[in-house]
């Protein structure tokens, strides 16, 4: 059901915001942070999907979009993401893939193939 996918997306985003907020409270009390900037090749095809995806990344505390490189002939759209609590490239990319998968399933109403 389409409505359930959208509701599940809203629930997932709220849970991510709460988890990230507690990490920022941890930063305020202990002062511990591990920063990194990674490039993420996104699967979002239209402008609407890309806008919602970058907004969702930024609204989650701990990840922030610093720039979007438009698609060229050789490679697709690339999103540059600043991460505050994680400097391991593979785990950041895994988190972004999961977020993007939930969003695209809610928007397209069909399973998203892995790339």
């Amino acid at each position, binding site marked *: 059901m389409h409505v359930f996918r959208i509701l599940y997306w809203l629930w997932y985003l709220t849970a991510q915001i709460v988890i990230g907020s507690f990490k*920022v409270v941890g930063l*305020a*009390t202990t002062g511990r942070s591990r*920063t990194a900037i990674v*490039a993420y090749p996104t699967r979002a095809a239209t402008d609407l999907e890309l806008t919602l995806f*970058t907004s969702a990344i*930024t609204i989650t*505390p701990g990840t922030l979009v*610093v720039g979007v490189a438009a698609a060229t002939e050789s490679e697709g759209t690339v999103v540059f993401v600043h991460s505050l609590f994680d400097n391991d490239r593979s785990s950041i990319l895994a988190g972004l893939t999961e977020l993007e998968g939930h969003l695209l399933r809610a928007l397209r109403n069909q399973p998203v193939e892995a790339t």
Partner: protein
Amino acid sequence: MIVLEFLAGTLAIVGALLFLSVAIAQFRARDALSRINALGPATALGAPMLVLAVAIGRSLEQGLDWMLWIKTAITIVALVVVSSVASNVLARATCRSDAAVDEATHPNDLRSSQ
């Protein structure tokens, strides 16, 4: 009723504590990008909690008003969407200006691409 009063008070105090911890985190973060990143809890979670607490408190005192709840819903959605877009714009401006990125930022894909 007493449950709703307790809920409104708890929401207000937790939201205010989120604002305070974000203010302290602005001292702990090491560069401007980390500070923009650490602003998230205040605008995405703290402010909606406070607005919701105010709406519950007013409904308890003056009865249910649909216009108040519509306005509250618009406020919460606008806070989440608008603060996200504002953070994006500010982060992009920070990258394009000469603000220093912390040396401990690793991996840094922006540095290798320029």
